[in-house]
């Protein structure tokens, strides 16, 4: 395929901006005409996929719509009903499939997500709090001036700063954000381990249609997309989930079980933490370095995602149920990894809420108090098909274990656990790497709301703004 037209793509689709501050604004359209005026005014401001050869901007702006939002923008009915069913239904309606029950059910969500009032997501990323505020003020002024949208709520997120340095950490202390897939035609620096595994052991970009509408996917098919083609083309779907993290519960669980794991010392505690995720907390893959974290691997992008599980079928290095092995099994299911190429997602996201230093935590803070603090991660996934990609991963690989021969077992940290569930860590005869079973699994993560969004191309935004969407 030819190179993608980066000027027609929203930049957020092509790259994680790697900016430490973000505000996600949730808009409600009061009047379709005025909303279209607002979108029209936003058009020249929206950050595209153009390269930043002139230097990185201070802030970025992107926009995406819910199905309710597109209805209120009065898109033609023939277009509205041509969207994939899961997008039309929205995340709340899909709760049964996603396992959003119990503590993850709608009663526990932030009010803004409970009644389908959110019509659009306006995502602002910035290099500084000042730039963030300035951009948000500008956006609010535009909304007020045009009368195009009402701000229902907003969500601030920010990278965790430790020792004055911006980090890629999340609240459980793991380094996050490794290994987003590469796609054909998307120009960025690529590293081994991204994209799809080839028979000769090298890695190649995934088909563009796994990320963008209007292009062939890994099956050689066009993803299910709305009509007309030009409305869909160069767009994608975004899953937004606010995931609260029970930091006290996590640390208490880690303390409790690591006391009985291996030597029961500080290294055993870190090793156990690494067995939950499949990476040491500095990001070193346990598959590559099972005994110790290795900054030489973690900080080298040519090594940090370049591994497979073929020689670790028993899971003695990386447990079969470890998070990164579940959600990206690489070659673990055989067939040279081909079974997973249509189940990949691109992740964006940032933590929200204050970070609690671990050293303080075990001694000074009550776990319940740590849990109660509003903090977690804003998880955003981009994919061409929410049902085939995100929902499949959530349903089959997070909330179930059959594909990995783990029966009903769920992902330890992400799963919504019931009574009698276990997390099994495979081991060997090395006393520092024993087989180990954790029981009485609490819920480490709780859903606080979210929605499915359509993230259109610049062309499509223009068509929406000018009322030119014609499904014929």
């Amino acid at each position: 395929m030819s190179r993608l037209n980066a000027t027609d793509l929203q930049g957020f689709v092509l790259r994680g901006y790697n900016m430490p501050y973000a505000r996600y604004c949730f808009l409600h359209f009061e009047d379709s005409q005025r909303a279209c005026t607002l979108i029209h005014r936003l058009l020249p401001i929206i950050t595209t996929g153009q390269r930043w050869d002139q230097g990185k901007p201070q802030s970025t702006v992107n926009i995406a719509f819910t199905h309710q939002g597109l209805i209120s923008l009065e898109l033609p009915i023939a277009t509205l009903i041509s969207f994939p069913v899961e997008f039309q239904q929205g995340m709340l309606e899909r709760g049964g499939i996603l396992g959003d029950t119990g503590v993850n059910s709608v009663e526990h969500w932030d009010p803004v997500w409970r009644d389908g009032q959110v019509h659009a997501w306006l995502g602002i990323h910035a290099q500084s709090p000042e730039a963030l505020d300035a951009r948000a003020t500008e956006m609010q002024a535009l909304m007020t001036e045009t009368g195009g949208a009402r701000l229902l709520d907003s969500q601030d997120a920010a990278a965790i700063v430790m020792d004055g340095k911006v980090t890629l950490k999340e609240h459980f202390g793991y380094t996050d954000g490794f290994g987003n897939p590469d796609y054909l035609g998307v120009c960025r620096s690529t590293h081994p381990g991204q994209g799809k595994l080839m028979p000769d052991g090298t890695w190649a970009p995934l088909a563009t249609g796994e990320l963008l509408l209007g292009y062939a996917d890994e099956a050689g098919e066009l993803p299910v997309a709305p009509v007309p083609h030009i409305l869909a083309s160069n767009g994608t779907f975004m899953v937004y989930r606010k995931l609260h993290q029970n930091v006290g519960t996590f640390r208490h669980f880690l303390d409790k079980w690591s006391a009985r794991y291996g030597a029961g010392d500080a290294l055993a505690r870190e090793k156990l933490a690494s067995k939950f995720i499949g990476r040491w907390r500095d990001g070193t893959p346990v598959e590559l370095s099972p005994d110790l974290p290795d900054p030489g691997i973690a900080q080298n992008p040519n090594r940090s995602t370049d591994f497979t599980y073929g020689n670790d079928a028993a899971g003695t290095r990386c447990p079969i149920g470890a998070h990164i092995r579940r959600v990206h099994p690489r070659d673990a299911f055989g067939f040279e990894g081909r079974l997973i190429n249509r189940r990949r997602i691109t992740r964006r996201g940032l933590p929200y809420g204050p970070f609690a230093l671990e050293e303080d935590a075990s001694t000074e803070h009550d776990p319940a108090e740590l849990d109660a603090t509003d903090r977690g991660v804003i998880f955003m996934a981009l994919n061409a098909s929410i049902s085939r990609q995100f929902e499949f991963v959530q349903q089959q690989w997070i909330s179930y274990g059959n594909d990995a021969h783990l029966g009903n077992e769920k992902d330890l940290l992400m799963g919504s656990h019931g009574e009698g569930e276990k997390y099994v860590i495979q081991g060997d005869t090395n006393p520092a790497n024993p087989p180990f079973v954790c029981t009485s699994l609490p819920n480490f993560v709780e859903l606080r709301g979210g929605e499915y969004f359509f993230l259109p191309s610049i062309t499509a935004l223009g068509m929406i703004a000018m009322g030119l969407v014609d499904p014929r």
Partner: protein
Amino acid sequence: MANQSGSVYGLTLLSPILDDERAVPSHDLQIRKYLATLPTGADSPFAIAPGTHLARLVVMDDVIYVGMPACEEHLKSKYLVFESNCDGDLDTYLTGLATKVPQHLDAIWSHCTGYPGASDVPAFLRYMKACQIDTTFFFAAVNDKSVTDTLVALQTQRAVADFIATHQGMDTAQTQREFIEFLKILKAAPPPAPGVMGPHRDIKTGGRNE
């Protein structure tokens, strides 16, 4: 041999459904109605009769014309399709069905041409075999163990996993004593009943995603 994969037999039957204008509702609809209310759990006929790993009953009305450029074709009859991955040899399996759940078989197959009834077992076997076609694909999740062996293995797996979880880190002599006791109880336990699924899963799966 196409119908046999290790110890598992793959049975595929196509039984022509009676075409009788006087029947109200028609025979195919009567089969559909009966199948729609057939129990799927422990009361399923395939749980009551021995040896079924997975069974499926389908009413096939016709081949569907999908429009040009396909040519329009039709079946000579409507068919009841019965597919089963089962244990052992075919005669034993079919005899098990005929003797354990004859009322279900009769209620379903009495709407099919030439069905002799399940009470005459030799005639029933001849009829079913006359309807048989070769199986070329098996249900992938069926392994080479019998239904009972599979159920016992699952029971053992759960029990051993629970034992490990409650005994890891325990003094070895005590673990051994308790393991010997545990084994005694486990070996004496009856095999679990077929058709009873594992723990309830609080998530929708299957064909509900689209």
